[in-house]
């Protein structure tokens, strides 16, 4: 068993030692993607299912690259979450896959807690690729790796997450991951898009993005889901950009060089302006590159960590 155990469900509860172990393994794996033959045989013979109940091009492709570069056999299953309401439950879907003898499941699901739910019920390793508004741990890890690449240690560094924290699994994984690594974390956004209890999670709150920029060493700018406007959380995208948009004009007033992260896909001109996204402070493409390495590291550290049948909580009638 490696330090990670059977599954990666979230960064909540992971220790600094565990996160450091993942990042330290990811570091040398970056080189594999630079080779002419971008492949190592580590996971040969292992079958990984990318079980996506929610459309996601980026995360799925990043996982698929990671799996293929580690020589795993991959199968992509795009299941509509609505099939659940048609009768087949998440656990049925997973048990059916497992009956075909698979080794790992990478799961993306619109329900918070879905990855953990699955992990408790199947023997395969489960990697959470985003569950509802809960966690997206590999995104958190790739953000940590990117920040570590640029800032060295994260100890005492100030990172502000800007935007729709309320609905963001990226924000939660970032908060816990950064805190575990000793960073100071703040959030900034309209109060209607911040959880009421956010301060109890040990983060500072900035109502104004200008104040956040003055404080921070790095901004992690979240994607603003366009449907938030229809649901009445904010009046308009235009106003959002005017008040909370990360713009060059605002960055120019920063007292120090800021790093700009964004989990993608970006809404240019809404939460982030193009000249920031494409500008010298942006590490957005670096994040994407690191995403593959981090996911390779997680695959490697989980592979072979099998639960015994007794450890798997069996669902069913009592």
């Amino acid at each position: 068993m490696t330090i990670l155990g059977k599954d990666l469900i979230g960064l909540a509860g992971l220790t600094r030692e565990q996160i450091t172990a993942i990042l330290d393994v990811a570091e040398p794996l970056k080189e594999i993607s630079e080779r002419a033959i971008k492949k190592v045989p580590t996971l040969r013979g292992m079958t990984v299912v990318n079980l996506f109940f929610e459309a996601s091009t980026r995360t799925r492709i990043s996982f698929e690259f990671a799996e293929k570069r580690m020589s795993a056999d991959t199968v992509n299953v795009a299941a509509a979450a609505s099939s659940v309401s048609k009768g087949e439950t998440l656990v049925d879907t997973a048990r059916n896959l497992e009956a075909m003898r698979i080794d790992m499941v990478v799961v993306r699901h619109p329900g918070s807690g879905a990855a953990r739910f699955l992990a408790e019920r199947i023997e395969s390793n489960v990697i959470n690729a985003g569950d509802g508004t809960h966690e997206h741990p590999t995104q958190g890890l790739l953000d940590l790796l990117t920040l570590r690449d640029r800032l060295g240690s994260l100890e005492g560094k100030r990172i502000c997450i800007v935007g729709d924290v309320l609905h963001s699994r990226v924000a939660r994984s970032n908060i816990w991951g950064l805190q575990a690594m000793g960073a100071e974390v703040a959030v900034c956004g309209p109060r209607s898009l911040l959880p009421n209890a956010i301060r109890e999670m040990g983060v500072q709150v900035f109502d104004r993005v200008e104040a956040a920029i003055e404080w921070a060493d790095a901004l992690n700018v979240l994607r603003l889901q366009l449907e938030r406007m229809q649901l009445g959380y904010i009046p308009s995208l235009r106003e959002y950009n005017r008040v909370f948009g990360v713009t060059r004009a605002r960055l120019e007033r920063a007292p120090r060089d800021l790093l700009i992260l964004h989990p993608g896909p970006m809404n240019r001109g809404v939460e982030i302006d193009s000249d920031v996204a494409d500008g010298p402070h942006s590490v957005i493409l670096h994040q994407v590159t690191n995403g593959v390495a981090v996911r390779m590291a997680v695959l490697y550290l989980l592979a072979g960590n099998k639960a015994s049948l007794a450890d798997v909580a069996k669902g069913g009638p009592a």
Partner: protein
Amino acid sequence: MSNAPSVVLNARAVARTISRMADEILELNDGTDRLVLVGIQRRGVQIAERLAEVIREREGVEIARGALDITLYRDDLQTVGPRPVVGKTVLPVPLDGKVVVIVDDVLYTGRTIRAALDELADFGRPARIMLAVLVDRGGRELPIQPDVVGKQVEVRKGGRVDVFVPALDGRDEVVVLGGGADA
């Protein structure tokens, strides 16, 4: 008696041995042309450095060097430790047509070298691959033989050969532990 650690090469003996190994490599390759030394992480890399140093002194030529981490090419994923360390693989020159000398500290089962050969194949097609090891302790599980050997030591299964290098360990010697020579 046989379980006590015994120094089989001290610092001076290591220096002599590496010097001789460098000579043998040059002889086998008929010079330094196309030669690339690739050390296996981590102590193989250190020994490759020292071989390159000797060659620089002898021939006045800087030999291309690389480092190979074979962790991801191992055939025993199930035995990955709790906190595995993956080192860097660095191959600064294309290997096509080169004479690659794999350098490692100890040759035992041959599985590490098998993994190294697999990994090298992912980087190109050398004209020839040779193997140079500081210590050959026998006990092969694969049909792999070294071309250049610093010292042959017979160590029983369960015994250990520890190579200490100054850069990593602050000492410079080869010690056999708990194995003793086969009677």
